[in-house]
């Protein structure tokens, strides 16, 4: 079953009145439970594609279906709800909220989703244990290493049991062994929970673990 499908997805930016097609007629299908890597040279449209698939930005034309829902028909509020409940995000620079502890950062999406307190705390604890940070729950991001912050970010992305987890260069800021550990976590999530993982990366070690690699060039899928 396709969890994501795009039809003639196009994104056009205007810079100084010059139109630039960041994505051109991208047709893509991703199956539920796939581990997909998107790569390509700088400016190829990888991040733009991730923004589109993650409902962060709207396409200029074309359609995106997530779980058979045409996202172009959804309001900003409905898209926020979709991102909260069905999509998880892991960013290159971790982007944890600096004033909140690891525990509070992971708890935040569940709090927004209205998960009851007891259930929320239990899940937060188990997620932090899952990423190996059961003993660092009360630390704020500045007290954690880069690898630890990224693991908290993964736990946050998994908070509401999303069907799809998007990661943008998740190992880009980490040393290779820490990066491997992060990828192990993604692989394990994909294998155990059958969650779809879509990672944008230049990193060879990422593409080697993916079930499928989508290569972009000049806003088009080339392989």
């Amino acid at each position: 079953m396709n969890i994501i499908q795009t039809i003639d997805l196009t994104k056009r930016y205007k810079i100084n009145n010059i139109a630039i097609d960041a994505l051109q007629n991208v047709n893509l299908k991703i199956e539920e439970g796939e581990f997909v890597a998107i790569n390509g040279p700088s400016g190829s449209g990888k991040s733009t594609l991730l923004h589109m698939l993650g409902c962060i930005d709207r396409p200029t034309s074309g359609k995106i279906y997530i779980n058979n829902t045409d996202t172009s028909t959804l309001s900003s509020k409905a898209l926020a709800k979709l991102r909260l409940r069905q999509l998880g995000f892991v960013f290159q620079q971790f982007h944890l909220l600096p004033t909140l502890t690891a525990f509070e950062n992971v708890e935040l999406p569940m709090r927004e989703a209205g998960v009851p307190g007891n259930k929320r705390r239990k899940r937060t604890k188990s997620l932090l244990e899952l990423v190996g940070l059961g003993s660092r729950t009360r630390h704020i991001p500045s007290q954690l290493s880069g690898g630890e912050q990224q693991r908290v970010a993964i736990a946050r992305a998994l908070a509401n049991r999303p069907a799809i987890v998007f990661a943008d260069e998740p190992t880009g800021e980490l040393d290779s062994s820490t990066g491997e550990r992060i990828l192990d976590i993604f692989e394990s999530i994909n294998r155990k929970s059958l969650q779809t993982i879509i990672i944008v990366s230049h990193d060879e070690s990422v593409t080697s673990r993916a079930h499928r690699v989508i290569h972009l060039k000049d806003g088009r899928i080339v392989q």
Partner: protein
Amino acid sequence: MSLENLRRRRYRTLFTITAIGIAIALMVLLTSVSLGLKENSAASGSIDFWVVPADSDILDPVLGSGQTMLGDVHSEIETLFLDPRVKGASPVLNRVVYAYTNDPNKTSVVLATGVIPGAIDVMPAAASGFKGGDPYFFGGGWTDEAVINRQMADLLGLDVGDRLNLDISTGIFASPKGFKVVNVIDTVDYSGIPVIVIHLSELQYITGNLEGDRADQILVEGPDAGPLLEKLYPDHLVLSGSEYTTFKIVSDKRILATAAATALVSFILGMLFIGTTMVMSVSELEGDMAVMSAIGISRISILKSVFYESLFLSAGGGLTGVLLAVVGNMFLNNMLTRVIGLNVSPAIEPMLLIGGFTVSVGAGIFTGIMVALLMKRPDMTRAF
């Protein structure tokens, strides 16, 4: 999260709260001083109700002397005491009189207050040294008893046991009556101007109000006495503590103008301080807001956190303002008493403190809503 954000930028938060606090404290102090200068205190303490004629200027003993007064006040008090809800009650007559010790050509203008001593448990009616009740009115002798405050004692160089004369006119129309000082009130929360307190009927005699048994107001102790007073005095104003303060402010255009102007300035200053902090905060948190939006936190939740931040700042500023006002009032009175022998605002009315806090929180709510409304939708792609 809002509290955490404020804690994270603790110096800016502290500065904003202090700045708002100063504005609020100044507002409370200025209004309080206006009230203190105007009101030449009838009483201080926990009075539950004031009964005043509807069109009376209860604050001004000079301008108020030509206004409507209450009549037959002694019998009114006797009627009140028949009801168990009334724990204490006394009529009050305030008049400006001439006072002198030995030389009738060296008079000082002071405020004379007439009360029924012992009839109510608040100053000055509760001052020690007085014979209880109002003997002269009921056919007893002239008591000669006077209680004065420290300002009056200093003005005329009087002490307990000394004698002085009171009159409402000087020169050929003078017919002074002599009094003996039986006590000097030293408490600072009593009136800041020279005051002499005597038995009501004796002041009524001096000022020509004995016939008709007139007074300016009746003070009543007894928190449950409201309905009784409303029933007994349908044509008068029956004011509770907070209503009395409000009445004092709104019944005098000068005080009202001071209160309104200071409240407006404080509101604007509060808005500016909170607004500046919030704009800086929102601009600093743009990245965090983009991340929050990206992970699905709704716009309304983000706006709520901005609004709460503004509310916490204003509440902190309001509380600081109230504390500063109380401390400032004590300092001001202390300083002025030492320098010019006058404490301008004997005590800050609780209503003014509530007003100060409300102005601050109002500024916070207004600014919070404005900042939230003007805030742009965060650019979520910034998170990537």
